[in-house]
């Protein structure tokens, strides 16, 4: 009996600590919304989100181009980073001789720690001039930001996808091979399906990092306030808007930056919820069949 009481007690303490993640999330939401929402209401939510005028001195706040900018840059990053890291993960877990894996995997994992500002810096000194020379435009562009972000998320997404694919029971693969499937058929019909929730989680993490990256994007995206009309046009993202102006903003202007944060927060939550439900529903379906 005493043992059971002690166990219950430990369980409650653990629960209290375990709530800290959701509590932090609630606090973050509460504080950002408290600072940002009033000014959004004052300007009008529709006008704030859909107008393209950002003149803080005159009290005109519209962030439409930055919303478009954030989405465009993230989509680009996912196309580049998502594809490459999936290719890496599949190769490393399914097709690569173990000797090569033992070199490549640590390589990729070690590189996961490179600060994003370093990627941004390389973007400025190499990528931006190259884009400007070979593709035209100012170089500081949606494309540059997409490539930088895509490369930036590679190590993380790859190494988590690798773990997800490795977690698939060996017997699945052996079973499929025994039924006469080629390794590639096994990979994309069995392994990828079994590891899907892990891979989706990796992609979510990568997407979150891409939408949320600030400094690297500031360095290569150009930060103009216009709506980007091509991938070679400069662009300002929601994150850059906050970081660029937070240093000197005060009063309404600062609250408008928090409102930019509210928008970013909302976009992230929507993306997250979609991704999470999709991965969960698929997991359930796979479990039933």
């Amino acid at each position: 009996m005493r043992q059971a009481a002690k166990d219950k007690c430990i369980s409650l303490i653990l629960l209290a600590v375990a709530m800290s993640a959701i509590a932090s999330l609630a606090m973050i939401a509460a504080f950002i919304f408290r600072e940002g929402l009033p000014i959004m209401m004052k300007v009008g939510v529709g006008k704030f989100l859909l107008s393209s005028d950002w003149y803080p001195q005159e009290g005109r706040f519209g962030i439409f181009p930055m919303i478009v900018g954030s989405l465009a840059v993230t989509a680009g990053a996912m196309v580049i980073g998502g594809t490459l890291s999936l290719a890496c993960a599949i190769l490393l877990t399914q097709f690569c001789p173990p000797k090569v894996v033992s070199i490549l995997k640590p390589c990729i994992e070690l590189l996961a720690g490179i600060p994003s500002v370093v990627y941004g810096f390389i973007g400025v000194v190499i990528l931006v001039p190259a884009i400007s020379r070979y593709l035209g435009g100012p170089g500081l562009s949606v494309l540059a930001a997409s490539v930088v972000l895509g490369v930036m998320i590679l190590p993380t997404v790859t190494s988590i996808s690798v773990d997800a694919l490795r977690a698939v029971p060996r017997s699945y693969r052996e079973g499929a091979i025994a039924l006469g499937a080629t390794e590639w058929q096994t990979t994309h019909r069995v392994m990828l399906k079994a590891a899907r929730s892990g891979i989706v989680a990796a992609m979510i993490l990568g997407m979150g990092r891409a939408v949320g990256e600030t400094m690297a994007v500031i360095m290569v995206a150009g930060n103009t306030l216009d709506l980007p009309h091509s991938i070679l046009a400069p662009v300002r993202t929601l994150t850059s808007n906050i970081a660029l102006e937070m240093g000197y903003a005060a009063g309404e202007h600062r609250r408008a930056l928090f409102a930019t944060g509210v928008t970013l927060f909302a976009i992230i939550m929507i993306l997250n919820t979609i991704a999470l439900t999709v991965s969960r529903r698929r997991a359930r379906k796979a479990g039933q069949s």
Partner: protein
Amino acid sequence: MKRPSPAAMQRLAVSFMWLGTILTVGVLLFIVAYILTLGLPHVTWEFLSQGPRLMGREGGVFPMIVGTLWVAGLAVMIAAPVGVITAIYLTEYTLEGKLTAVIRFGADCLAGIPSIIFGLFGFVFFAITLGMGLSVLSGALTLAIMVLPTIIRTSEEAIRAVPRAYREAGYGLGATRWGVVTKVVLRSALPGIGTGVVLSIGRSISETAAVMLTAGSALRLPTSAFDSTRTLALHFYILAREGISMSKAYATASVLIVAILAINLFAYWVMQRFVAKVR
């Protein structure tokens, strides 16, 4: 059109994946090599041991090294216990239900939140509302929340990977649940948990946006947790962005990269040893 044979499909797919992998590893290695080639010649003992002069145009980065260690160290020390305990609760102490779904949702969402939002939150909450100002402590607390989901997720996966039989053997020997968790489960999950912690240290060191808004950008040496400081990553950003000094920027980036590679390498080595020992 004839469908290509399964064997041909496989050859095609595999060659594409090789291409992608070589490109990935190539680009990443190129970045490191490029920075180190241009930066390492400028990294001297003076650069590491002196404070900056003329906004960083001359002198070194000693205060930034100290500031980075403070902020990142504190952040992980706060986040690691909380994260591991959360993971233990989720995997060992409760059945899947509404509560675990809520906790997991919280962690997953937290993972997706941009660092600049953490920065805004840390700025209003820790720096202004709690009166900590732009300081090492504000920065560390903000980063701790930021890396918490990484630690939770990796620890959870590591704990889940521990075979069921280990736990059953523990219970079979008459151990309590807490005994099984601490003596059996945590011990075999340790390398996985370590990976998460190391990833978090790396993320804390390389974070820029959140520390800019919470720890500030003071150039002097921080002497207490309530001093403002400038981390290496932020210093590098300011040097590069404001064009203060390219050679100092490359040198600072080299220090950052070498430090992170060293930390990761060390952790990797420890993990390998641990895995070998367990086997």
